[in-house]
């Protein structure tokens, strides 16, 4: 246990110049400067509560200032490893979702006319329970599935609920996020992720990942530190992204060809004998097979595919060799190979193998496996174990490389179409807008007997549901403790900041506990979220009360140390240049060049459509948040990007409206003409095109990226291949 109580106190004194008085229930009452003179009537009560942001998966810690029940300030938590005392634009802006006039306020049921009617919780729960049991009776529990974007309480309760019903089908959003990447990594190094030691590196290459556009404050800080230390930072991206502020070089690669770049750089290292042969020999299997398989992947070969001059590819490889082992290719997130192309999983594998050539694993400045802490075993009398579900989840056979912790929920949509999945639950997921071909997804979901959506606003997915259950916002609920890995692992708490605003909304833990009771499996939920949180925390030596006082608690005894050779959790116990599982799944045993599914033909006016985050939004989730959407509107951020020379050829000027079209969809959109994009690509931010009229701020702004993406899945890995799509543009009025 660290002395974070001290950190906490200095924070309070330091940040507001206040005298802190510990009040009951873990809240802290403050007398803010200047108010001592105020009269009794205007004397306001300020509370400071530690919580976790919900605007993206980083879930940064922050302190919320609540004055007379109203949220006022937010201050990033210094002790939270992702926040490091800062929040991004979303952190401040998304907090206003609590006060959104477009919130869901009551349970609703779709009537025969397809309209939603407000119903009571009792009715909603009993009808859903009845239908769940009907489905189990008729089709078995495998006909039920859950899609959720992991959040501290949500990931626990949704899985437990499904498993209690006997269904293994719990999916994350991975198929449209980072499924290929994490699955590919797992095949090569037995770990789903690692972290580049960017700040201490001599050279780091980012492929399709921009710390400055999909922001985690600690990552931005690391990148800036690297830049100030003189590290060589390379951005491989079809777009010149905003990380360029702290980078030295933009490599404007043809989208979908990152694998060729990695293979060619590997080729250079091996041909010139510049790789860490000792490390490779000691830690890996199948190197020779891979070395001969990639012998033909010269920089000259890659130039024709990637559009990057061979000399640059060679230079980058040599610079890597020079910088090794304080160098790595950064693992990325969704970016270029989380779920984008037919070769994404293989790109991920190749990336790990390239880093292996550098011998950079767990080296200062290299690629690290950081520790995390997990809750220990709990008292089974109080927290009864759910019987293990033996059945395999849908898609496990067809997409064998997909991590079972994520699964490929696109396949679940297929199963809904085929009538094998009958009941589908969604929590904190807008699959119907955020995954390829929403129109087809809507058709698939129409075959369901039961579709239940738990959300805070009327998402496109909620619009398709039979039942919509309103959750209170993330500021109005306390969740299970969040264990965060890092140099020093921590546990942090999303505490309840505001009183529940709409009385008929309920927190996720209550909703799924009551659903379980209604479905007849309430015996697995005989505890409150506070009891569970406290038990989990006691299993690691602290308590809920203690965590509520300090917000974030670290585990210094589990701190990371450089130099340790990782335990490779692959079937061979080694880094796998060749993977039997990949071979069995129909891929090459070692990663070789795989063509993207489609390539644009410039001569017929085709472009590849690429997506990517803007710093102010997360997927479609934040679009209806006024402070964030106002930025989009003020700066025309819904525009598509077209290369300046291409635009000139097409007679398109900055700000012109064009029709963007392909076989899937078409629609009008304004253009940002820019030098910052590869001429074979058109970039469309993936946050817009909201089709839910109840989201009055977001409705009708821009186009939905996914409307232009066909429904297909990456072979063996099962991702959505969101950038395997071509579009053309035509100026309006021509």
């Amino acid at each position, binding site marked *: 246990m660290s002395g974070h109580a001290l950190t906490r106190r200095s924070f309070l004194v330091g940040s507001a110049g206040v005298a802190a008085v510990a009040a009951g229930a873990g809240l802290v009452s403050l007398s803010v400067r200047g108010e001592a003179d105020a009269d009794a009537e205007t004397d306001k009560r300020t509370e400071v509560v530690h919580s976790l942001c919900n605007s993206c998966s980083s879930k940064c810690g922050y302190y919320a200032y609540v004055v007379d029940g109203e949220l006022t300030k937010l201050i990033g938590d210094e002790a939270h490893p992702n926040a490091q005392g800062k929040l991004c634009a979303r952190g401040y802006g998304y907090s206003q979702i609590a006060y959104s006039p477009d919130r869901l306020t009551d349970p609703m049921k779709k009537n025969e006319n397809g309209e939603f009617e407000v119903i009571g919780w009792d009715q909603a729960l009993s009808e859903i329970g009845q239908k769940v049991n009907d489905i189990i009776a008729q089709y078995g529990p495998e006909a039920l599935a859950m899609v959720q974007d992991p959040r501290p309480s949500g990931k626990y309760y949704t899985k437990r609920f499904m498993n209690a019903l006997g269904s293994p089908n719990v999916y994350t959003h991975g198929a449209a996020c980072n499924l290929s990447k994490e699955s590919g990594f797992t095949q090569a190094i037995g770990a789903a992720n690692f972290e580049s030691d960017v700040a201490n590196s001599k050279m780091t290459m980012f492929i399709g990942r921009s710390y400055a556009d999909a922001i985690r404050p600690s990552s931005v800080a690391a990148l800036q530190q690297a830049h100030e230390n003189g590290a060589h930072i390379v951005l491989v991206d079809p777009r010149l992204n905003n990380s360029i502020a702290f980078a030295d070089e933009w490599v404007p690669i043809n989208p979908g060809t990152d694998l060729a770049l990695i293979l060619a750089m590997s080729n250079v290292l091996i041909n010139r004998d510049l790789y860490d042969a000792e490390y490779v020999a000691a830690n890996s299997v199948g190197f020779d097979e891979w070395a001969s398989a990639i012998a033909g992947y010269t920089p000259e070969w890659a130039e024709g595919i990637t559009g990057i001059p061979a000399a640059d590819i060679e230079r980058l490889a040599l610079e890597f060799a020079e910088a090794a082992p304080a160098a790595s290719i950064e693992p990325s997130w969704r970016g270029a190979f989380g779920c984008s192309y037919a070769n994404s999983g293989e790109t991920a594998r190749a990336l790990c193998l390239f880093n292996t050539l550098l011998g950079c694993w767990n080296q200062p400045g290299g690629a690290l496996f950081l520790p995390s802490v997990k809750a220990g075993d709990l008292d089974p009398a109080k927290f009864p174990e759910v019987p293990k579900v033996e059945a395999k989840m849908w898609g496990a056979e067809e997409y064998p490389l997909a991590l079972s912790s994520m699964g490929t929920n696109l396949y679940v949509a297929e199963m809904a179409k085929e009538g094998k999945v009958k009941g589908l639950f969604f929590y904190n997921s807008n699959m119907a807008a955020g995954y390829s071909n929403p129109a087809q997804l809507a058709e698939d979901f129409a075959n369901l007997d039961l579709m239940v959506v738990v959300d805070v606003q009327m998402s496109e997915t909620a619009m398709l549901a039979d039942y919509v259950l309103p959750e209170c916002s993330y500021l109005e609920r306390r969740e299970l403790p969040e264990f965060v890995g890092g140099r020093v692992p921590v546990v942090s708490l999303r505490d309840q900041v505001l009183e529940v605003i709409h009385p008929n909304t309920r927190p996720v833990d209550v909703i799924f506990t009551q659903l379980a009771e209604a479905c007849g499996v309430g015996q697995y939920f005989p505890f409150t979220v506070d009891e569970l949180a406290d038990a989990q925390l006691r299993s690691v030596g602290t308590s809920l009360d203690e965590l509520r006082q300090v917000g974030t608690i670290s585990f210094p005894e589990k701190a990371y140390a450089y130099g340790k050779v990782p335990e490779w959790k692959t079937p061979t116990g080694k880094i796998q240049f060749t993977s039997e599982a990949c071979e069995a799944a129909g891929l090459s045993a070692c990663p070789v060049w795989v063509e993207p599914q489609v390539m644009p033909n410039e001569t017929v006016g085709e472009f590849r459509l690429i997506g990517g985050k803007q710093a102010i939004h997360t997927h479609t989730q934040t679009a209806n948040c006024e402070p964030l959407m106002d930025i989009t*509107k*003020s*700066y*025309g951020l819904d525009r598509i990007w077209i290369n300046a020379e291409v635009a000139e050829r097409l007679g398109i000027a900055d700000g012109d409206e064009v029709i963007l079209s392909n076989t899937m969809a078409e629609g009008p959109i304004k253009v940002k003409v820019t030098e910052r994009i590869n001429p074979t690509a058109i970039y469309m931010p993936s946050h817009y095109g909201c089709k839910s009229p109840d989201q009055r701020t977001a409705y009708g702004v821009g186009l939905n990226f996914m409307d232009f993406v066909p429904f297909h899945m990456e072979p063996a890995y099962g991702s959505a291949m969101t950038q395997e799509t071509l579009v053309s543009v035509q100026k309006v009025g021509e």
Partner: protein
Amino acid sequence: MIYEPIWGAIIAWYLFLAGLGGGAFATAVFVRYRHPDCKRLMRVGRLIAPIVVIIGLCLLMFDAAAGFAHPLRFALLLTNFGSVMTWGVVFLAVFVVVALIVLVLDLMKREVPMWLDCVGLVMGLCVAIYTGCLLGVCQGFPLWNSALLPILFLVSAVSTGMAAVLLVGVFYAPDEFNEVVVMKKFHFWLPVIEFVLVAALLFITAFNPSPAGWESVMSLVAGNWAVAFWLLFVIVGLVLPTILECWMLWLAKHEFETSRTGQMISALSDAGVLVGGFMLRLLIVSAAVPITIVQPWML
């Protein structure tokens, strides 16, 4: 950032009506000393002047939402004599008072003292010039930030003021309308001068070191505002009146000029001047684009 004009049609109406009021008063004074028998035309000018300015001021106060909600704040308008707007308030206030006194005296068939007419005339012209200075001091807008603008607005103000008096006069005092030939000839030249001034303003603005100057001019002559600019301002507001008046004053026979048809043609010309006068304010207010401060435009 996508720029949205700070002021809209209401302010354009205000600038137009304030100028028109000043111009109408000036017209009445012109009639008094050049056509002293045309008492009814004189009265038209004296009537129009305070009424349109008061309407304009009401629009202005309505547009100033915070003041509209807290009317007492308007009392603070005389605190900063460094502000063009404060001077405008002074000119407008004195002008409205003088114009109202002149109107009352006229309606009571009492002689208006010459000094009062002079004060009103000077104030009226000041009001017209002020509407141009108001925009002219804004350094961020190349289209506004020019010494030509007050002169242009002054010419337009006198032009629209006379046009308004003549237009009403055609119906209210058709005989006198035929008498005021000197004034009509004077009035004829105003749109011509305006044309020259606008052309000069656009040229100077287009060559402003900031691209905003070029963009403002382009949005007028070839962009979003092009139709309004060419059709309603240039054709209807300048060319049409010039052609029609040229025909009536110099080409047409005196009988035709003074016939009812001739008067209607002149009325059409005057209506065109009024349309053009309003369009001028609307276009100048709306089409101005601010400088992009991050370009090294001024160094």
